[in-house]
C-alpha cells in the first residue's frame, strides 16, 4: 500500500514537471506582445529587444527553461504585464482562489452526490420510467452545448425563480445558479457511469451466489453492487474535477464571479502572458492533485491494490 502511494506520488510529481515544461513551451508560441506592458505600440524595435533581453527571453531556450524552473521553485510566478502591470501575478490570483475553490467544491459535491444517487436509482430501477427519464437528461446534457444550457438556466432562473443573474458574495441566493450550472454536466456523467458500472456488476456471477444464499435484492444492491461500482467511479472523480474547472471558465465570466476562471479568460483576452502562464499552471496542479487523490481513494477501497496483488494471482 505504502509503496503504491509513494509510487503514485512520484508519478504525480513527474506529471507536474512535464506539464510545467509543456506550458512553458506553449507560452513561447504566444504572440510576443504578451510580454510587454500597455505601451507596446509606443516602443521602437530596439526598446522592445532591450525589454525582452532584460526578461531573459532572448537567452537560449534551455537556459530560459532552467531559469523558469528555478523561479517556480522559489515560488515566484512572475509579474503581470498588462492586466495590472508589474504587480506580482500571485497577488492578483490569490484573492480569487477562495471564490473558485468554494464554487468548484460546491458543484463538485453536488455532481457527485446527486450524480451517484441518480445512477444508483437508474440501475436499481433499470428499464423503468425513472431510468428512461435519467437517460433523457443525460442525453440532453451531452447533446446540447453547455454554453446554451448555461444561458438558458441563467435566464429562466431569473424569470421563473427570481434568482439573481449575477454573483454577489454577500447574497447566497446568487450562488445557486452558477453552482447548479457547473454541476449539471458532472451529474450527467456520474449518473451515466454509475448506472453502467452497477449494471455491469449486476450481471456478474457473484450476484447469483448472493441471491442463492437468500440475500434480499436491496441488500445485494447496497452491500455488493454499489460498493463494487464505487471503485471505478472513484477513478472518475479527477475527471469530474476537470469538468468543473472547465465549466468554471465560462460560468465565472457569465455570472461575473471574481474567480480564477474569469480571470484566465480576461488574461487571455488581454494577452498577459505571465498571468496566463501562472493560471494554467495552477489549474494543472489542481488536476494532478485530483488525479493523485483519486488514486489514493482507489487504494483505500480496492483490496487488490491495498494488498499489492498481482493481476491474475490465484
Amino acid at each position, binding site marked *: 500500500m505504502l509503496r503504491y502511494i509513494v509510487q503514485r506520488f512520484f508519478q504525480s510529481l513527474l506529471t507536474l514537471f512535464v506539464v510545467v515544461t509543456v506550458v512553458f513551451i506553449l507560452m513561447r508560441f504566444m504572440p510576443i506582445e504578451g510580454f510587454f506592458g500597455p505601451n507596446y505600440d509606443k516602443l521602437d524595435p530596439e526598446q522592445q529587444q532591450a525589454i525582452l533581453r532584460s526578461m531573459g527571453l532572448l537567452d537560449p531556450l534551455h537556459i530560459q527553461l532552467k531559469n523558469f524552473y528555478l523561479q517556480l521553485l522559489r515560488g515566484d510566478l512572475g509579474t503581470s504585464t498588462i492586466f495590472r502591470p508589474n504587480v506580482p501575478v500571485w497577488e492578483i490570483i490569490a484573492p480569487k482562489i477562495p471564490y473558485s475553490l468554494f464554487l468548484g467544491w460546491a458543484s463538485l459535491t453536488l455532481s457527485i452526490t446527486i450524480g451517484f444517487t441518480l445512477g444508483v436509482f437508474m440501475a436499481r430501477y433499470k428499464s423503468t420510467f425513472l431510468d428512461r427519464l435519467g437517460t433523457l437528461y443525460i442525453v440532453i446534457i451531452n447533446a446540447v452545448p453547455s454554453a446554451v444550457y448555461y444561458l438558458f438556466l441563467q435566464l429562466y432562473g431569473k424569470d421563473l425563480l427570481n434568482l439573481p443573474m449575477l454573483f454577489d458574495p454577500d447574497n447566497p441566493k446568487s450562488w445557486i445558479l452558477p453552482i447548479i450550472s457547473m454541476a449539471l454536466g458532472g451529474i450527467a456523467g456520474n449518473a451515466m457511469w454509475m448506472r453502467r458500472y452497477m449494471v455491469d456488476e449486476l450481471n456478474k456471477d457473484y450476484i447469483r451466489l448472493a441471491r442463492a444464499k437468500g*440475500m*434480499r435484492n436491496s441488500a445485494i444492491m447496497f452491500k*455488493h453492487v454499489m460498493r*463494487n461500482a464505487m471503485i471505478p467511479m472513484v477513478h472518475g472523480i479527477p475527471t469530474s474535477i476537470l469538468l468543473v474547472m472547465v465549466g468554471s471558465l465560462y460560468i465565472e465570466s457569465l455570472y461575473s464571479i471574481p474567480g480564477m476562471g474569469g480571470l484566465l479568460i480576461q488574461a487571455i483576452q488581454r494577452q498577459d502572458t505571465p498571468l496566463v502562464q501562472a493560471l494554467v499552471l495552477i489549474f494543472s496542479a489542481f488536476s494532478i492533485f485530483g488525479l493523485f487523490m483519486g488514486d489514493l481513494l482507489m487504494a483505500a*477501497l480496492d483490496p487488490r491494490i491495498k*494488498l499489492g496483488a498481482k493481476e491474475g*494471482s490465484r
Partner: protein
Amino acid sequence: MAKTVEELRAEYATKEKILEVKDLVIKFSLRGDVLTAIREASLDLYKGESLCIVGESGSGKSVLTKSFMGMLDANGWVESGSILYEGQDLAKYKTEREWLRIRGKEIAMVFQDPMTALNPLRTVGRQIQEAVELHQGLRGRPAKEAVYELLEQVGIDDPVRRYKQYPFEFSGGMRQRVVIAIALACKPKILICDEPTTALDVSIQAQILELLTQMQKAYNLTLIYITHDLGVVAHVADRVAVMYAGEIVEVGLAEEIFYNPKHPYTINLLSSLPQLGVKGQDLFAIRGTPPSLFKEIQGDAFAPRNPMALKIDFLHRPPYFEVSPTHKAKTWLLDPRAPKVELPEAIRLLQSKWGDDVVADA
C-alpha cells in the same frame, strides 16, 4: 457395505419425497421469440439421496434446478406444471418475499466457476458471515465464530487469518470450498451442485467431491448433482436422471442406468464412454445436434439422431414406461408392441453383467 439392487429398491420404497416436480414447462423469451427450455419434465427427489442429473449441454439441467430457487433469468418463466416442496407449490411463487423463504434456508446452490462466484471486493469471511447472519440468526462475535468453524469444516486451515482474506488470495479449489461453506452456512435441506468441479484441476476435483459427500453426511443433505462426467456420477449417485432437450427421458438407480439403460439417448450416451469402448472398434459418438427449442417438437425429441428410431418415435411423444419401481424411461422401445432392436455391442456387454448379482457400493 454393498447392497444389492433389490435392497436399494426396497429402501427407496420407504423413502420420503422431499421435492416433486410435475410436468414442468419453462420458457424464455429471446428477441421476440419464445423458446421452451424445459418440456414437461417430471422428477422426484427423495430425502437424503444423491441424485445426479446428466445430459448434454443445453439440455436444461441448470434451468431446471434454478427454477427450484426462483433464480431463472429475468426473461424466463414457469409456463405450467408444479414444483411441490413441503406442501407448497414453488412454481406459483412470484415475489422475492416468497422466494426468500426458500433460498438458502431450504435449498442452496454451489456453482460451476468458483473464480467468479465470490465478490472480489469483500473478504471471504464476510461473505460467509452474510449467510450465517441470514440463516442462523447470529450476529457479531458468535457469527464470526460460526464462520471460523465452517471454514475449518470445509478444510480451510488457519480460519482466523483466512477470514480476513479476499477471494484473490485463494486458489480455485479453496474458493470452491468457500462457496460450499456459504451453502452450508445457510443450513439448507437440499444442496444443488451445478457442475461444481468442472472448472477445477482433476486432482482438486476429487477433493471437492470428497468434501461434498462428507458434508452431505454431516448435514443430512439431499444432493442434486449436475455433471457431464459419468465417472463422477458413478462415484456419487444413488440415482441418475438423464435429460434430453428439456425432458427427463430416463431416471433410475445408478446401477439401473449404467447396466440396463433403456432410452436410446442413455444408450448412446453410455456407448460414447471411452471406458466402455470395445477394443478394435471406433469410439462411438452421438451424431447430429439437439433439436431447436424454438420449435414444437413432434414425437420423441431424440428420434432424428437415433439410428434405431421407430416410426412412432417421429409421430407421438412416448410416455414413461416403468422398468422397475425405481426405473422408468420415456421411450416407445419399452412398449410391449415394440420390435426388438439391436443394441450396440458395448451396451450388450454391460447388460450381460446386469442381474441381481450386481451390487452397489454404499
